[in-house]
C-alpha cells in the first residue's frame, strides 16, 4: 500500500465554475426554540417518512410526531406550531442530530425554511450532512445557548445575527457574542456555494493513480 501524501490547494478559478448549494453569508433573524436534549434524527424525521426518492418535501414532516397530535391536527404546545415563534434559526438543546445517518433530517430542517441550527453540541454525521446542504450548524457554549433560550423566552421576536465570514453569532438583546468554529474548507464552500463533488471530480487523475499504486 505504498503512496505519498500530496497537499493540494484548491485553485480559485475552478471554484468559479460551479455553484451547487445555496450561498451562505449573513443572517439576521428571530429564532425558534427547541430546548430539548439529544434530539435524534428519528424525531427530526421519522423513518416512515423516508420513502420519497427525491430531496424535496421533507419539511412537512419535520418533527412530525411532536408537531402533530395523534389525530393529525397540529399540537399547539410545540414550538413550530406556536405563531409567536418564527425565523430561519433553530435553537436546540445539546447533542442535536444523534442517531441515523439519514440526510433526510438535514433536508427536512432546510426544507422547512431554517438556514442555521444552533446547539451546544452536534452529532458528527448530522453536522456533516447539514454542511453539505447549505445549512449552517453553529456550535455555541452551554452559557451562550442558555442566553439564547432566555432571550427568546423574554421576547419571542428577539433577534440574532449569524455572520459566517467573521464566524460570530450575536444575541442582540443581551449584547453577547460568540465566536464559533467551522472547518475553513467548509466555510469557503458555504460562502461561495461550492460543491464537494466537483472538487472530487477534479481529482480524477490522482484518484486513478492512487488506485494503480495500491
Amino acid at each position, binding site marked *: 500500500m505504498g503512496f505519498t501524501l500530496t497537499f493540494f490547494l484548491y485553485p480559485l478559478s475552478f471554484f468559479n465554475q460551479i455553484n451547487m448549494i445555496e450561498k451562505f453569508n449573513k443572517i439576521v433573524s428571530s429564532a425558534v426554540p427547541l430546548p430539548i436534549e439529544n434530539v435524534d434524527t428519528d424525531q427530526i424525521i421519522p423513518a416512515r417518512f423516508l420513502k420519497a426518492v*427525491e*430531496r424535496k418535501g421533507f419539511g412537512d414532516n419535520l418533527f412530525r410526531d411532536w408537531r402533530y397530535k395523534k389525530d393529525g391536527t397540529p399540537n399547539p404546545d410545540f414550538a413550530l406550531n406556536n405563531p409567536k415563534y418564527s425565523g430561519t434559526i433553530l435553537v436546540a438543546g445539546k447533542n442535536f442530530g444523534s442517531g441515523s445517518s439519514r440526510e433526510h433530517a438535514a433536508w427536512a430542517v432546510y426544507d422547512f425554511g431554517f438556514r442555521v441550527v444552533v446547539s451546544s453540541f452536534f452529532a458528527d454525521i448530522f453536522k456533516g*450532512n447539514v454542511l453539505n446542504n447549505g445549512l449552517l450548524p453553529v456550535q455555541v457554549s452551554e452559557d451562550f445557548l442558555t442566553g439564547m433560550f432566555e432571550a427568546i423566552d423574554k421576547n419571542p421576536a428577539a433577534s440574532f445575527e449569524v455572520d459566517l465570514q467573521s464566524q460570530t453569532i450575536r444575541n442582540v438583546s443581551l449584547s453577547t457574542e460568540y465566536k464559533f468554529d467551522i472547518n475553513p474548507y467548509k466555510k469557503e464552500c458555504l460562502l461561495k456555494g461550492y460543491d464537494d463533488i466537483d472538487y472530487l471530480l477534479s481529482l480524477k487523475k490522482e484518484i486513478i493513480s492512487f488506485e494503480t499504486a495500491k
Partner: protein
Amino acid sequence: MEATTLFDKIWDAHVVNIIEGGPSVLYIDRHFIHEVTSPVAFSGLEGRGLKVFRPQNTVATPDHNVPTIEQHLPIREELSRKQVETLTANCERHNIPLYGLSHKWHGIVHIIGPELGITQPGMTIVCGDSHTSTHGAFGSIAFGIGTSEVEMVFASQCILQPKPKKMRINVEGTLAKNVTSKDIALYVIAKISTSGGTGHFVEFAGSAIRSLSMEARMTLCNMSIECGARGGMIAPDETTFAYLKGREEAPKGAAWDQKLAEWKKLKTDDGAVFDTEYTYDAADISPMITYGTNPGMGVGVQGSIPTGDDLTGSDRATFLKSLEYMGFKPGEILKGKKIDYVFIGSCTNGRIEDFRLFAEYIKGKKKASWVTAWIVPGSKQVEQQIREEGLVEIMESAGFALRQPGCSACLAMNDDKVPEGKYAVSTSNRNFEGRQGPGARTMLASPLVAAAAAVSGFVSDPRE
C-alpha cells in the same frame, strides 16, 4: 518508527489528498448501498451526466423497507415498492451487483457484507447507514455517511472526511455466563453516554474483546455509533481469519496467503497514543436492558431506573420527558414489568449466533400467550442456517414463527410496527421515541434477555 494506532495505519493508507486546513480525500474500498439513502444520490449523479465510477466496488441490497413475510409477492405498500424498484433500476443502469429480494444472498446490508467475505481487514467501507460501523469488527475503517456523500463515492470512489480523534475502550477479564457483547455495548454506552464518543473513532481492545466470536464483535462495533462515535473497530486476529477463509468473496489460494500476511500487520503498536482511553472490567457487566429513549439509558436487568435526583435544568427535564414517554417512574425496578412485543433481529443481533442463543433458551419452554414475537433473520443465509440447524422446530414448538430477512421492526419502515404505548424488548440498536412505530416503547437488550422476556411475558433475568 513512531508507534501508530490500527486506525491511523488504515486511514493513512487511504488518503489520496489532504486539503489544507480542510478534510482529507479518503479512498473507499467498498461501498454498500440500500433503497432508502441511495435514490437521491443516483439522481444527483445522473443530473451531472455521470456514471458510477467504480460499480464493481459497490454492493446493493434492499433491506430497510421490505416485508418480512410473503417476500415472493410484490411489495404491497406503494412507496416502499417504488424505492425497491428504483434501487433495482439504478443498479441495472450502473452495473452494480444487487442482491435483491429473491436472491439467495439477500439480507440486511451489514449482515451480508461480512457473511459473503466482502468485508475484509484493512479496508475502508462506507454506506448510507450509520450502523456501517458493524464492519469494523474485521479491522476495517467503516462508517455511515449521508446521501451527499453517497453521491461523492458514486462519482469518485472517494469522500472528504476530517480525520476523527482516536479512542480506545479496553474490556479486560472474563464475561460471566449469559453476558453477551450486546451487554458490553449497552454497558459502555451507559457509562460514556450517547455523545461520549462524538468526534472519535473507537478501537475495542482487551482480553474480553479478544475472546469474542466474529458475530459478537460485529454486535459490539455495530453499537459503537450509539455512543456518538463515527465507528468502532477491532484488530483482526485468528478468529477473524478463520471466519473469512473460504467465504465467497474472500481471497483464495496465493492471494489469500498474501492478504493474510498483510492483515497480520494490522494492529495498534505498543505505546501508540489515543486521545481518549477507557478501561472496564468484564466481571462488572451483567445482562443489560434500557429504560429510556436513548441507548445510553440502560441498567443491569436486576437494577432500577435512576432517580434523576442528581440532574438539574434541561438534563432533568429531558430525563423526565423520556420516562414519561416510556410510562416509567424514576427509581422504579424494571424486572417484572409486563411486556407486549419481542423482536429478535436487525444488523445488531440478526446473525446465526443470536438465534442459537435464543433457541437454546426457549427450548422446551413456551412463549407467553400475550407476547407478539417477531423472529427475523438478518439474511437469507442466516435463515437457511437456522433451518439446517433445526432451530425452526425448537422455535415452532415454543410458539414462535420465523419470518424472512430485512430490517423489520428495527426501524419499522415496513409493516412490523409496535403499536402505540406497547412495550417491546428488542435486540435492535435504537430505543428512540417512535423508532419501532409511533408511540412504541422500546427496551433494548440481548437475544437472551429478549428470550427470557418472550417466555415469561415480563422483563426477566435469563440467569434465573
